[in-house]
């Protein structure tokens, strides 16, 4: 599992260290505080040990961030020449942390160092980007590998993950239960033919392009659970699960994420959504390991982070502050006449 990230002069950060929960990590913060950057950095580090990937850390950073040059990932400041990102992991029973780091110069040099990072290779990380890609899957992968098209690699990767073959035999009891929950919410199951995804139910098969985008997200989860991409020891990154999702479905999403956590999947999500956060607060029990990381800018404009497992202690909470501003305006409206 991922234990820590250290960022120095990297993208939005001057200097930041974040410690993670082995369970669910919720990243909060206003736009521009680097939530997605944290997730993409860790995802790039995980790709190095992916059995299906041969990219190096710096190559994957380039592919998922898509800067003009890798030097652009160095935190912009006068006279600053170098930045770095270092990711740590430690699996159950291990004495010491493993790590991988990439030092980048503004001139475009990248130096990767590893401490036992790639000694074991696996299929560890899945990144669900904000925009759904399953509806656009047919021939996208071929296009992406043959032509220069300006898509961050996370969009291509997620299609690869969704298209992984389904293992033979019956799914485990836990997995079957999760699929059943998704079946109910989707009123059907997801099938794939020639890279095209369909929702199959009693009425027939419906192409994903005709399906509401929020439901496509549940469909993607269905595929990732069914093909065992999300399994014990894997890591799931999900950027704004709430995007295009009816808030009513947030309960299902949170339930699935907490169940995945119990199955040994480490989860990272970035969110701006009150409902999703509240669903986590209501669903979290003593068995759940949920840590909320709040990224914010201090008075000097530097990004800092506070982490807590107590939802009442989340501060500064950008979501709550937005509602607070609405409440204050509502109160002051009482005195307008």
């Amino acid at each position, binding site marked *: 599992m991922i234990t820590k990230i250290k960022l120095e002069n990297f993208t939005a950060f001057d200097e930041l260290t974040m410690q993670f929960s082995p369970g669910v990590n919720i990243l909060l913060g206003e736009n521009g505080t680097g939530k997605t950057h944290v997730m993409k950095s860790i995802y790039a580090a995980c790709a190095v040990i992916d059995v299906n990937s041969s990219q190096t850390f710096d190559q994957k950073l380039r592919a998922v961030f898509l800067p003009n040059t890798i030097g652009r990932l160095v935190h912009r400041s006068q006279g600053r020449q170098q930045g770095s990102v270092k990711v740590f992991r430690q699996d159950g029973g291990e004495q010491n942390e493993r790590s991988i780091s990439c030092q980048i110069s503004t001139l475009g040099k990248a130096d990767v160092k590893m401490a036992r990072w790639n000694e074991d290779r696996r299929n560890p990380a899945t990144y669900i980007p904000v925009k759904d890609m399953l509806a656009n899957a047919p021939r996208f992968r071929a296009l992406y590998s043959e032509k220069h098209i300006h898509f961050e690699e996370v969009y291509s990767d997620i299609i690869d993950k969704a298209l992984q073959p389904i293992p033979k035999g019956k799914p485990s009891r836990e997995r079957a239960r999760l699929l059943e929950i998704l079946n109910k919410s989707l009123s059907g199951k997801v099938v794939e033919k020639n890279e095209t995804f369909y929702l199959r139910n009693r009425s027939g098969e419906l192409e994903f392009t005709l399906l509401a985008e929020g439901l496509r997200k549940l469909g993607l989860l269905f595929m990732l659970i069914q093909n065992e991409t999300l399994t014990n020891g894997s890591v799931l990154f999900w950027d704004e699960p709430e995007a295009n999702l009816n808030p009513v479905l947030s309960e299902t999403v949170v339930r699935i994420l907490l169940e995945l956590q119990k199955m040994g999947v480490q989860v990272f999500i970035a969110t701006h959504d009150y409902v999703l956060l509240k669903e986590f607060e209501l669903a979290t029990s003593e068995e759940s390991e949920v840590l909320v990381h709040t990224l914010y800018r201090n008075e000097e404009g530097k990004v800092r982070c506070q982490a807590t497992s107590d939802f009442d202690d989340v501060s500064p909470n950008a979501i709550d502050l937005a*509602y607070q501003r609405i*409440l*204050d305006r509502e*109160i002051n409206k009482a*005195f307008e006449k």
Partner: protein
Amino acid sequence: MIITVDGYRFDFPNALEAFKFDEKDSLSPHYHGVDALKAVDVMVEMPDEYLFIEIKTYDDLVDFKKEGATYDDNEARKWLIRTLSRKYRETFLYRLCEGKVNKRIYYICLLNFDNALKSYCRKQLAKHIPTGNANPRRWHRMILDKTRLLILDEAAWNRNGNILRWGTCSYIG
């Protein structure tokens, strides 16, 4: 004028009157005395306004949960809205009989819920009181002006100048 009710201390320096409205002590000059009518917790008379203040906390809902044999989430929500609306309406009726509804009335519910839930609660409560003129063809006055329903907590009270000009509110436990 300082008054302490249900763990909250209010200080209204310019109030003409501030007292515990649901007073149970029959020897008190502010004894409520009409069991059939529900009452808000605090009544304040300012030079130009009446403030009806009701205090409800998350713990009140927990107590309701313990009492309710057929409890579910919807029941607790309905109970809260029903209680808050009934308290306002019956206090309004009581004050009407006292001849004391001749100034602007503000209904302030002190709730320690999330800010997002306060907005939701305000909408539901506005429907149930009801606020505004519910029947313009026949009504000549409103039970409560729709903008004068305020759902807030201690922090919101003390950061909004329009409320603070009446006085301060602090939770003392």
